[in-house]
């Protein structure tokens, strides 16, 4: 937008870029004040008795957020553990084994949470009626469906190999059986972000790309953090910590980019609410910066046990941060849909794409 300070008719900004049917000369519904032309942080124009034009999603944030976390954890865990075994072979067997168990969380508890949140849960199977690309929930249904066979085959073979004596021959079955879940796991890690982005809820819709990078990175954070805990081989542990640190750094960068974009779209006001503060200080501070700090501190410690304890602690905070991110992102989004000063600011013409 230009820096023009003359009063603008509100339709002009649409007519400038997108008007096919507008006749600027004839239509003068409203004279925009200069304060609106200079893009305030929230909507200050008229509202209908302080109501928002949107409805907030009827999700239970703990249940759906819990699923999104488990989907990321399973997906990220499958990716990291499969790669560990592919590159390091037998030495990473422990990582692969734990990864196969972690990968069962989304198809079991995660799927139950999803069904639990339906308002007519006995009809959950209708999700398989169709497949459509415009609905990330449909895309996600099929990604989860594709994730189930290999993750469950891998985990099933792993259980037998662990429990039955002389079932060592099942180890390759577990390893090769679970390998495809690394591919579907990538989808499972990020589709939830596109599910939120493809709505009209301001905080979710404001910045689809950076939100998806946040979610994707957070999935790998939780995946690698879950594998760090209990890893005995120091070299593998260091490699996992390196991956965790890299994913945390990417998540931090994406978070900063996301909040910047959200501010540009006039939605940042919602970050001042209670859940907004949790999103900023809980996720960014305790879930990202603190684990990074603990990792840095672990390099100063020479004692091996102390090192391991610090990196375990970092992994626990990273896991908690990833879970908090999902619940907080849902709650902040719903708050942004309920607030007319945010929802109307977001639906102004200057936020139109292109």
């Amino acid at each position: 937008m230009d820096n023009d300070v003359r009063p603008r008719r509100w339709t002009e900004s649409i007519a400038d870029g997108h008007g096919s049917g507008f006749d600027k000369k004839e239509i003068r519904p409203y004279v925009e004040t200069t304060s609106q032309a200079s893009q305030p942080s929230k909507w200050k124009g008229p509202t209908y008795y302080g109501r928002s034009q949107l409805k907030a999603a009827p999700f239970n944030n703990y249940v759906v957020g819990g699923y999104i976390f488990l989907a990321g954890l399973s997906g990220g865990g499958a990716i990291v553990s499969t790669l560990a075994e592919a590159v390091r072979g037998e030495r990473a067997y422990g990582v692969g084994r734990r990864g196969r168990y972690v990968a069962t969380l989304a198809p079991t508890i995660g799927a139950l949470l999803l069904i639990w949140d339906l308002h007519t849960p006995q009809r959950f199977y209708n999700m398989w009626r169709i497949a459509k690309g415009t609905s990330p929930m449909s895309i996600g249904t099929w990604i989860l469906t594709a994730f189930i066979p290999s993750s469950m085959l891998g985990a099933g073979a792993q259980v037998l190999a662990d429990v039955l004596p002389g079932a060592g021959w099942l180890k390759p079955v577990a390893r090769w059986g679970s390998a495809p879940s690394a591919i579907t796991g990538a989808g499972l890690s990020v589709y939830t972000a596109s599910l939120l982005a493809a709505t009209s809820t301001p905080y979710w819709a404001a910045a689809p790309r950076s939100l998806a990078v946040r979610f994707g990175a957070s999935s790998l954070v939780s995946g690698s953090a879950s594998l760090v805990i209990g890893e005995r081989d120091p070299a593998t542990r260091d490699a996992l910590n390196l991956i965790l640190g890299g994913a945390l750094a990417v998540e931090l960068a994406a978070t900063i980019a996301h909040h910047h974009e959200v501010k540009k779209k006039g939605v940042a006001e919602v970050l001042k609410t209670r859940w907004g503060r949790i999103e900023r200080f809980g996720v960014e501070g305790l879930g990202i910066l603190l684990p990074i700090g603990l990792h840095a501190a672990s390099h100063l410690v020479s004692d091996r046990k102390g090192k391991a304890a610090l990196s375990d602690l970092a992994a626990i905070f990273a896991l908690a941060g990833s879970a908090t991110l999902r619940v907080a992102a849902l709650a902040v989004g719903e708050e942004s849909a309920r607030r007319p000063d945010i929802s109307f600011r977001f639906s102004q013409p200057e936020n139109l794409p292109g």
Partner: protein
Amino acid sequence: MTMVEFDVSPRARDYTQSTLKGLIPDESELTAGCLIEPGKSYGFFTDTTVCIGCKACEVACKEWNNLPADEVGLTGHSYDNTGALSSNTWRHVAFVEKKQADRAAAETGYGVRENEQAAFQSGWLMMSDVCKHCHHAPCMEACPTGALFKTEFDTVVVQQDICNGCGYCVPACPFGVVDVSTTDGKAHKCTLCYDRLKGGLEPACAKSCPTDSIQFGELSDLHARAKVRVEELHARGVTTAYTYGAPGDPGSTGDMQYLNAFFLLTDRPEAYNLPAAPTRPSNRVKPALAAGLMAVAALALGAVAAFAGAPRHGQ
């Protein structure tokens, strides 16, 4: 005395008796001046300049669709005790008492009436809000079960026998129309009287509207009527009149293209609780998926490097 020639269907003369034996075939031809045929696009043109706020549309909708009343109470918001569209309310009449509009509202709170009223409608705005039956309906695009579908009349309907109440259509809607009922656990919204259309009847709200503020008809016909009406209002001095939701209008922004239920407004959309520039949510699916997958792929490559770089043998 001269007979005034009304624009009515000649078929109206066939049904002069006060009690009828049954349904009039293609009754919409008599009441709305259009035949209802599958394969054509139908919608509403709601001309808010002639709305008198009688709420006959709300009542007709509740009666025909057997919708329960929402808990009765007073909102304190002018004559609007309905509040908003919901799973049980598919028509909602908004009452806007024009104050010394935005300046006074910002400085003194609201409730200050204009001392000098505009010549038109004495500072009152009323609008019967309804599901917009969007051309690219975000609720339908979001629906993972296919419960929401486009009918043969180009309207958007929730199939109650399929909906599993996932609730994803609710945040998808840019207008806050769709709602999930906690009683029956399904999504509900205006069906544009799908059952009546199949029987050749005009939707209940449009038929009951005493001032023809709600007009039902074929979309191309309604667009033409709206254009004429806007021009007429401009000629009469109501220069603030414009359409919301017709092609190229506000409401049809961001790849929404057009809304099958569109409006003629005289104030900013926000005054009527409408977004000025909604967007089509499904356009954000691909950018989000692509960016997320790229980030995951990059981190996976990093993971390969980290594992490959780690020493192979014990320390």
